[in-house]
């Protein structure tokens, strides 16, 4: 039966671009932090020179991230309501998130201090405590989406995992760019083995990300009307297909795999920058394709 809507009331999208930016910054921060702990906690010596810059980047990004969140609030001066214990809502991912976003930068700051004074023992203990915080601070954003039953594009058990792996991916890509800059301006050079392991990690996580995306596509294509509509909408969206997947994932993957591009630092830098941009587009499309499907 043919049917046409004569009139209806759609409500405006409540979020602005600050929300994907916030996810992007926490993701970069969590990724950088986990990379920083590779040498301090897990004892992989080759990442040692990266530990301090990675931790500092992670702290700076973590100061930007809540700023984005507060900017997006319609009542920015009431942001402290999220930290009032009486108002805590145990079913809300955002309630847990606001506490995590308070404790994680503090833990991060203490951790940076002990790397700075080169106290390896305490650094290891602090790093071990802070790694779960870093993981949760980003995983909660995935849960914030996964626990919304209204929107098929978000309501998926894969969401927290997808958010975590793309956080790691963007963190590694950012650190690779930072390593290239350090290599250029520092007296003691970084060993080439570092680049190789960063590159292999990026390839591995890119493949995992592609696996998540494939799972999303397949399940949504045989999902409810909403799910089918979202995946069809996404596949019609140029920034999703050409931005996120082609330039954000496939091109960097090819650059990182091909033997005649993977050894050159300029190509590595290009691939990292593309990945950094692609992960932002991923956050953007997760948020706004979800809103693109009308609910009433």
């Amino acid at each position: 039966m043919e049917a046409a809507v004569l009139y209806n009331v759609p409500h405006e999208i409540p979020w602005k671009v600050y929300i994907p930016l916030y996810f992007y910054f926490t993701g970069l921060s969590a990724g950088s932090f986990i990379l920083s702990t590779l040498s301090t906690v897990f004892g992989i010596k080759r990442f040692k020179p990266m530990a301090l810059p990675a931790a500092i980047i992670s702290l700076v990004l973590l100061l930007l991230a809540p700023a984005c969140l507060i900017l997006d609030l319609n009542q920015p001066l009431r942001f402290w309501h999220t930290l009032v214990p009486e108002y805590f809502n145990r079913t809300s991912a955002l309630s847990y998130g606001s506490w995590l976003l308070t404790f994680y930068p503090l833990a991060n700051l203490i951790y940076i201090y002990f790397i700075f004074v080169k106290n390896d023992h305490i650094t290891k203990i602090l790093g071990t405590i802070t790694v779960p915080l870093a993981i949760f601070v980003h995983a909660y954003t995935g849960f914030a989406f996964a626990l919304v039953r209204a929107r098929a594009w978000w309501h998926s058990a894969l969401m927290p995992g997808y958010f975590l792996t793309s956080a790691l991916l963007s963190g590694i890509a950012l650190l690779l760019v930072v390593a290239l800059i350090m290599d250029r301006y520092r007296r003691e050079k970084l060993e080439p083995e570092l680049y190789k392991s960063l590159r292999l990690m990026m390839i591995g996580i890119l493949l995992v990300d592609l696996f998540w995306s494939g799972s999303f596509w397949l399940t949504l294509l045989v999902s409810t009307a909403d799910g089918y509509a979202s995946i069809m909408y996404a596949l019609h969206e140029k920034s999703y297909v050409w931005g996120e997947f082609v330039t954000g994932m496939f091109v960097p993957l090819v650059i990182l795999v091909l033997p005649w591009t993977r050894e050159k630092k300029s190509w590595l830098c290009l691939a990292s920058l593309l990945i950094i941009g692609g992960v932002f587009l991923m956050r953007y499309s997760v948020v706004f394709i979800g809103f693109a499907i009308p609910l009433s």
Partner: protein
Amino acid sequence: MSSTSETTKGMPTANGKQENVSSSDSSERVEARPKRWGMIIDQRRCIACHSCTIACKSENNVPLGYWRSWIKGIQKGRFPNVGNFYLRRLCNQCDVPPCVQVCPVQATVKREEDGVVVMYYGKCIGCGMCIAACPYDARFFNPFRSTADKCDFCVSRIDNGLKPACVEACVSRALVFGDLNDPSSEISQKLASVATSVIKPELGTKPKVYYIEADHSLKGRIIFSDDFKEGILEYHRHIPSPDASYWKKGEER
């Protein structure tokens, strides 16, 4: 509010129950149980006059360009065999409200005494999570309050023994408002005797707004069309973006 909470407090004790049973006044017995407000929208009687929309806007002072409740209109079929169908839309007052689940500051809660999902505007930080999480698109940002806003069955009216403004305004008595816990109320009798449906039952939100003879294509999320481009892509252009100034008529005033 205080009287209902007192009666709910006294409910579980055996003494209170016995007292209620022994009292001959039937209205007192009814009041001893916690209320569960619900609404039936009888689409057989609705003439799509939009009185409920107007009454809602004037009662709750909803800014221009925003609606707490509205009517969705749809046209089915092909000329000359066409029909116009209407669906009265409002907050569904879910028993398992997704908005309450996601609110980080408990600014929106389901009241224990009557099951109405209300907003506490002073607590709301305006994060928009409840607007994103509502499966019925019943919530919006109120530009005057700068907080989330929605239909609350006119709490200030129902707390004082009145019916919601839309129910009072309905010209054809298509809206039935009452206590679902009271078996003798009009709404309970109607629910028991007429086939009703709710919007999106598969989400498990258990709405307390029931529809009689609502067309299935009206209750859908997207345009009822097989052509994807005509359906979703066209419809999507009508979703206002936060930057579109034409939509925010309320701010100009």
